[in-house]
């Protein structure tokens, strides 16, 4: 396999973008990415989108997006793995270039979620759970993560305050991110007095409904060295793993085997251990998710995610910064775009262009993007190369 570098990243400010359609978002992020790369060549396009069908009545993005981007006839495909669709699109682009099938691969993640109301959006998201054994019986994602949160509190003594501290920290980071949907600062008290959604999960424990897109351009390290526009960032490890789609089929609802395995695979490929990673963007769809992912990746011991967060270890200036972008919680969660936007943030950090939220001496970063309640997971390890 050839060595791969990320030479372009593109996004826009996320939010309720009433004036922008699904195609507008994908095209805008892609054009921003190509402008950032200073390249006008795309050999293949992989599109991460969870549900254009339900949210917009629009499938067949593999045709629409190249067309509106000005790359008609270019090979393109849409990949889907629920909320991990974006990460999967980046992995697909990686394989295209690493295998020699293409030299320049664009990965774009997009979701336009506000074309439907809250109820329909919740229904759309719940299609990432097991329809026969979960959704049909009335449970959706806040409910599933509430079960995990309650079990975590019971087994490990994780507190309501510790869950709130995840949101407080991510909003503090998002406050420094000009592209974040909800950059406002949040106090522990505000999180703990927000509307109850599914006990113990409150509104401010949940990532929001967002319109947004993100794109990255991949090529070989050899090509990247010729372009010389940005410091070189390489993808040194990728791990993809799956698990049962239904939470009730897991042996232990406090373990996330897909995350553990994807992490091990990515680290093995990169020839590293978790101690070699400086920071990570993780999938904090709910506050409890960030805590459980930290534990599954081995950043902390099981049960220590909450205390580590409250101790400030995951803050921007902590021992292991997590979600410097603000995470899904503050930056927003347009599901198919999230995995690509995580790459955007890590590249920006490794280039040293993250402004006020720049992590000092960031050399190796990780992204962790998961689908559903942990039924699928894509992990990337990125490194700055001199």
């Amino acid at each position, binding site marked *: 396999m050839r060595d791969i570098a990320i030479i372009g990243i593109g996004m826009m400010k996320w939010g*309720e973008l*009433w*004036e922008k359609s699904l195609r507008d978002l994908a095209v805008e992020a892609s054009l921003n990415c190509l402008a950032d790369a200073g390249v006008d060549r795309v050999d293949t396009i992989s599109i991460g989108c969870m549900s254009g069908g339900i949210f917009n009545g629009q499938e067949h993005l593999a045709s629409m997006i190249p067309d509106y981007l000005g790359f008609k006839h270019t090979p393109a495909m849409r990949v889907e793995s629920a909320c991990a669709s974006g990460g999967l699109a980046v992995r697909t682009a990686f394989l295209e270039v690493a295998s020699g099938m293409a030299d320049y691969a664009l990965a774009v993640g997009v979701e336009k979620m*506000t074309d439907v*109301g*809250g109820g329909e959006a919740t229904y759309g998201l719940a299609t990432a759970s097991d329809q026969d054994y979960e959704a049909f019986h009335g449970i959706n994602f806040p409910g599933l993560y509430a079960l995990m949160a309650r079990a975590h509190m019971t087994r490990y003594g994780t507190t309501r305050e510790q869950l709130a501290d995840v949101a407080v920290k991510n909003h503090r980071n998002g406050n420094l991110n000009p592209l974040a949907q909800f950059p406002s600062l949040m106090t522990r008290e505000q999180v703990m007095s927000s*509307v*109850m959604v599914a006990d113990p999960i409150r509104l401010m424990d949940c990532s929001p409904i967002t319109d947004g897109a993100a794109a990255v351009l991949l090529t070989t390290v050899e090509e990247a060295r010729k372009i010389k526009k940005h410091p070189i960032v390489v993808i040194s490890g990728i791990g993809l793993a799956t698990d049962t789609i239904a939470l009730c089929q897991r042996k232990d609802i406090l373990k996330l085997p897909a995350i553990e395995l994807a992490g091990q695979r990515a680290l093995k490929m990169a020839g590293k251990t978790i101690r070699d990673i400086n920071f990570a963007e993780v999938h904090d769809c709910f506050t409890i998710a960030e805590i459980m992912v930290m534990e599954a990746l081995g950043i902390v011991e099981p049960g220590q995610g909450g205390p580590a967060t409250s101790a400030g270890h995951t803050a921007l200036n902590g021992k292991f910064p997590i979600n410097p972008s603000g995470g899904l919680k503050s930056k927003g969660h347009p599901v198919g775009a999230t995995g690509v936007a995580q790459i955007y943030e890590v590249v920006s950090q490794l280039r040293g262009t993250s402004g006020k939220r720049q992590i000092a001496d960031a050399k190796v970063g990780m992204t962790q993007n998961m689908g559903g309640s942990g039924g699928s997971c894509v992990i990337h390890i990125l490194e700055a190369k001199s």
Partner: protein
Amino acid sequence: MDVGIVGYGTQIPRYRIKVEEIAKVWGADAPSYKRGLNLNEKSVPAPDEDVATLTVNAARNALLRAGINPMEIGAVYVGSESHPYAVKPTGTILAEALGICPHVHTADFEFACKAGTEAMFVALHLVKSGVMKYAIGAGSDTSQGAPGDALEYSASAGSAAFVMGADNLVAELVDTHCFMTDTPDFWRREQAHYPEHGGRFTGEPAYWKHVSGAVNAMLKKANMKPEDFNYIIFHQPNGKFPAQTALKLGFKEPQFRHGLLTPVLGNTYSASSPLGLAATLDIAKPGELILLVSYGSGAGSDAFIFRTTDRLLKVRDLAPLVRKQLDEHKVYLEYGTYAKFRRKILKPE
């Protein structure tokens, strides 16, 4: 020609239901509605109250303050989204009850919550054109919110009527401006009992865009600044939107405090900002400036600037004040009785 308001009058049903009572039935979080939307209770029409009866009472009160011969009124316009009949005018009922028929023009207006100020706009400009001496423009609703929908906490009932003319003014019209686009944020199809809405789409791209668009254009046209006004009234679908919008546009709380009725009245739809104007006329002093901006889904805003006159103080107490109608003889309903009053319980024929 100087035109404006000659008389104003209102009618508010005596029945109320509290946010807690509705939330209890649906298992909803009452404090979050009360805090988030600044809503406490809403008016409920009695079984024998509808847009026709509410408007007749409001217009009678307006005539008490106008002190004119009803036969001199050339037009009667009623704006509502709950006209009792789909086909058959409310305006004729009103004109007949007020003794104005048959030499009169009537029309029913519909533009979601903006229908009331539409009727006022046309009445004012017909008088200004010199076609007639006086015209009535009224906004009334017994508005609909589907059981369990967010709208059920606010959809309420009330009426405000204004006699427009060119003499004996209580408030002179300074200027108007209208701001419209085709924006489908809220609608009710033919034959449908309850409206549908676009959730959060009703906020920024709908209410905010049109209200701020109308305010900014009105200020520019009149060459005025937010601090020039003694009072402002914006359409009030809840207690939060108008306050938030006003503050964002540079107005201050004392300017909108008197006209903000929703927290204790609910959203009276077509009567919402007109009732706010009436409540403001109830306390304004002569020579003060008032900015009124409605909002109707679909979507658009009508902006009016009025300047009060000396005559306001002379006629104010000839009819009940809005706060008196709001505070006196209130009867609180339980959800069951409310459901019956609002015909939410269907009986076999």
